[in-house]
């Protein structure tokens, strides 16, 4: 499959995530949309890694060039997991005080 398919698919997925963040009002759904953005990046990195690695293999069968993209994906997963643990704790903390996870509630600091 040409790489363009992966690029456009990942960009679509990423855009869905961005639109979700901008339009949804529930903190947990906003959070899920952010995760969707990260996963779109993961998929794109793996696709690019495979592409670069394939090109390097054709030139030299022992080449390991292009595998660092897949390494990056593991780091993104680890950081995303750390972010989830902190983020959910913050959402729970807010829910305890306001009994709501609606981010429209976040307007106390405006004035």
């Amino acid at each position, binding site marked *: 499959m040409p790489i363009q398919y992966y690029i456009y698919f990942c960009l679509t997925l990423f855009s869905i995530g961005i639109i979700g963040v901008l339009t949804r009002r529930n903190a947990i759904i906003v959070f899920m949309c*952010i995760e969707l953005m990260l996963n779109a990046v993961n998929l794109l990195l793996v696709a690019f890694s495979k592409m*670069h690695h394939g090109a390097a293999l054709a030139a030299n069968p022992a080449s390991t060039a292009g595998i660092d993209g897949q390494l990056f994906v593991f780091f993104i997963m680890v950081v995303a997991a750390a972010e989830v643990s902190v983020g959910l704790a913050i959402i729970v903390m807010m829910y305890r005080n306001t009994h709501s996870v609606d981010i429209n509630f976040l307007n106390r*600091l405006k004035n």
Partner: protein
Amino acid sequence: MNAIIFSAVLGVLLMFSGIFFSKKSTITVIAVVSLLILFIVNIAENYGLFAITVDTKNLLSFSRFGLFFNSILIAATLIFVLLSGKEIENTSVNTAEYYALIMFVLCGISILTAFNGLLMLFLGIEIMSIPLYILTGADKRNLKSNEAALKYFLMGSFSTGIMLMGIALVYGATGSFDLVSVMNKPGSAGVEIPSFLKSAGYILLFAAMCFKVSAAPFHFWTPDVYDGAPSVFTSFMATIVKAAGFFAFIHLFESNAALLGPSWKILVSFVTVATLLAGNITAVFQQSIKRMLAYSSIAQAGFMLLALFSNNDLAREGIILYAVAYCMATIGFFAVLIKVKDYTFEGFNGLAKKEPLLAFSATIFLLSLAGIPLTAGFFAKYYMLASVIKSGGALWLVITAVLFAAVSVYYYFKVIQAMYFKEGNPEVNAGSAMYRTLLVLLAAAIVLVGALPSIVLNWFYF
């Protein structure tokens, strides 16, 4: 490598010290000692006396500039803990955890001052940001703190997503995460890739970095987060973390700026002017001093962006001086602000009568922030402007920056006016003798650096 290893280990030790020591002031002493150790090992590495070397496969590279900048930030954290340790103890019951989180932030900063590729840039920024989300929400019962934490978290991880997309696109175009080769490499042979990838990737990276240093038009989170977070941690976020963000921003683009073409300069100057405008003009209309400081930190970020624009040796000296001047002045002023009960301008009325020492040091901090001669802030701004002139051509940018610096004098002097020329009886906690001594020493240091900026810069060249 010293600072990265020691900050992580000392952070874990500090976290456990909460179990063994129930007295909060003991934990503060341990934190101060840990920061001192961290400072010493970092300096030692810079002088080549004691250095742990790990083969990082070219992911990290320790330059003298980066290590020196790291030492400045660790020293600033030390001053911050010495001045505001009492307030950290009073924030909540989990004192040891807060110090541990500050150490983890420093670990992220140590990575950011040494990164040599996009992978370490990403990890450094995340290790720096995630503890900050927690520190922002440290005041658990306070709704404003909750709101600030959630806002910071959602915006922060959103911008991380944007940055990662930028990194992925750059990787697709070049097949490498290395900082230097990224721009030069045309990409793997025999692969057909769309040509927009590299420029799109760099624009996304630029936007995400602008968000992290709160440059306009990505600054909207800053006032709310800085206002809602507990004041001690606002002071930490607005100074040390922001300076580290700037170092990363400049380091990311310094070796590649020439290859990015003329549109790069237009983009950076646009962002700089927008940041100066948004920060300074909005700060004029604030009622709360804490919120005014949040906008002023955006305005100061505009000045630091000039180093990104000019990108020469003078800019590197300038960003060092700016980090020193801005960190000292803002940490000092926040230390005074915390002691005052009411954060509005009226809350400062008549402070000079009641606490002449606090008011006098606060005046020096504000003069330094405004960039008045004989304070450190003057030479910081001077070096920035000189570097832009040296890089050639952009005289209009210098004039704009000077005009906005003049605007900033208005809102800084409003505080001085309230302290000295208005009648009032502010509620203020005078603080311990050590706090007052340190405050005066800090003010003296600002005047000293303002008179002889070379004492900071000589360290850089030693």
